[in-house]
């Protein structure tokens, strides 16, 4: 289940934190555009997922928004400022994590990284010390703050990178693969921080990730891109609803391994159902394109065969299934 979309909860319309309009980026004249006519906006309090296979143009889009790459055409407004013209003003209100744990000094401690980048961002004295401590607490690094970053685990290093990005309390956060290469626990910890930043501090977050489960849990809205072009954009639930029909399935899970004779009779009566047999369960499932009354018929037959039903119900499509469906044959989903 994805996060609810604040835009649909009757909240007053908030000014867009980041607006990308008709963005085109071409690196070479005779090559396809890395980003080809992309438009979207990320309002405050929203996690916006920019999803796509490798080479889809996600990182280029993020870097154009930040002014690290110059656009070929189109306009970008970051925190209300036109980029790259007002880059220096806009960047005061933006923070970024690029490609996981890069962008920090590994030979410095987490605290020293924060103090260094904080000073460059204009924080000083007590306010820098206070903000550094608050940020270390936010990402859960207070007890490891004085160890060199290179000695920390990968997950902690990425927390340091995230801490550097949020240190100056920006309105907009751009997170490019913030959970890259992390184990489940470390990824969940980063996810929890991002959730806190949007839900409690109303920050606008633009997130790119290959982890579709994370995107589904975290993103209010998503834009799927492929080969630089927009494939679909919308509220995460709506996109899954709209394109997940083929992957929405009905399942009946039976206790134990069903004998061959019974299984043959079931398959004969319901040829559209696929059967998965495991050590302790047998699962029959079929796509929702088939009529729902089939479920009742199958339940009656199963009951007549004297089989024990562990679970019967529908499984919604996942964002990953929808993503693969939307980008199939157009690139390699990670």
């Amino acid at each position, binding site marked *: 289940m994805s996060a609810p979309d604040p835009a649909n909860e009757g909240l007053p319309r908030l000014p867009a934190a980041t607006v990308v309009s008709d963005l085109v*980026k071409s690196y070479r004249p005779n090559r396809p555009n890395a980003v080809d006519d992309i438009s979207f906006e990320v309002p405050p309090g929203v996690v916006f997922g920019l999803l796509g296979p490798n080479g889809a143009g996600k990182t280029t889009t993020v870097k154009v928004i930040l002014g*690290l790459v110059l656009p070929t055409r189109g306009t970008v407004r970051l925190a209300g400022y036109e980029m790259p013209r007002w880059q*220096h003003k806009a960047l005061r209100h*933006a*923070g*970024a994590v690029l490609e996981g744990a890069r962008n920090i000094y590994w*030979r*410095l401690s987490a605290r020293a990284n924060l103090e260094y980048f904080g*000073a460059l961002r204009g924080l000083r004295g007590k306010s820098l010390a206070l903000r550094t401590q608050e940020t270390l607490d936010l990402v859960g690094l207070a007890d490891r703050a004085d160890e060199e970053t290179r000695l920390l685990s990968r997950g902690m290093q990425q927390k340091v990178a995230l801490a*550097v990005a949020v240190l100056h309390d920006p309105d907009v956060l751009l997170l490019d693969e913030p959970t890259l290469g992390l184990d489940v626990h470390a990824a969940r910890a980063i996810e929890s921080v991002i959730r806190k930043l949007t839900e409690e501090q109303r920050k606008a977050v633009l997130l790119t990730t290959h982890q579709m489960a994370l995107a589904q849990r975290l993103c209010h809205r998503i834009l799927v891109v492929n080969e630089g072009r927009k494939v679909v954009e919308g509220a995460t639930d709506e996109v899954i609803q709209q394109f997940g029909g083929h992957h929405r399935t009905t399942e009946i899970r039976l206790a134990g391994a069903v004998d061959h004779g019974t299984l043959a009779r079931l398959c004969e009566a319901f040829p559209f159902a696929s059967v998965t047999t495991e050590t302790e369960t047998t699962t029959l499932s079929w796509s929702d394109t088939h009529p729902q009354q089939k479920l009742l018929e199958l339940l009656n037959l199963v009951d007549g065969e004297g089989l024990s039903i562990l679970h019967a119900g529908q499984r919604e499509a996942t964002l990953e299934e929808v993503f693969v469906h939307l980008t199939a044959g157009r690139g390699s989903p990670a």
Partner: protein
Amino acid sequence: MSPTVLWAEIRRVLQLARSYWLEYVSDFCLYTVGFLLLLVIFRAASDTFGPEGYLSSLIGYVTWKIAASAMADIADIAALESRTGTLEQLFLTGRGPGLVFLGRSLSLLLNYGVRGLLLGAVLAALLNVLPPLTLLAVVVFVLTVVGACGRGFGLAGVVLVYKQAGGSINLIWQMMVFFTGALAPLTHPVLAITAKVLPLGWGITSLRAILFNGATVTTLWRGGELPGLLLNTAFYVILGAGLFAWGERRARSLGVLAHY
């Protein structure tokens, strides 16, 4: 130049020094022994090479060590930080890349300045020579270093676009010890002209004139050393700033500011 940026850079250098102390110690030992070996070779080659020659070489060597190291490092950090991704984070601070690099250059100069002067002091003590430092010598030294940093800025701009150029920087700075007359005054006309074109040549010539001949501002001006040094420094600072601005814009256009 914002004091905040400069102070942040100085703190960063000091914090990093704790992590790199072994490298600093080995660098110090290597350059101390290396210089003494060079003097042994010079003395074997010429019977007249004595304390005055030691001092002349020491002045050039220390100037080269400080200025050329800073020059090479300014360019090197552009390549290194581009690979590690910290260059992008620096740009994201909104301070302006030129300003951040200027702060970085000054902190590098401070780092190399302290290490270079320590090296010079130890070598001077070992050789029992004393360079008579004057205000004019300090001004000439600063102008020389500024010119070298200008060249470093230019190289950094080139490295932002052409990452592979980073590999040749170390070669350039090592070669400068020979082609700037750092170890001994160059008498061959072609080498003498080469030394005048490179960033350190005018400065080292002027420093020797001040320390050995008691040259004043007037004599340096009339002799052409001071105008030469000023022009050389201005040329490299303007060229460096221009190349850096070009490199930054070009790298952003090509999307190669970071090169993971």
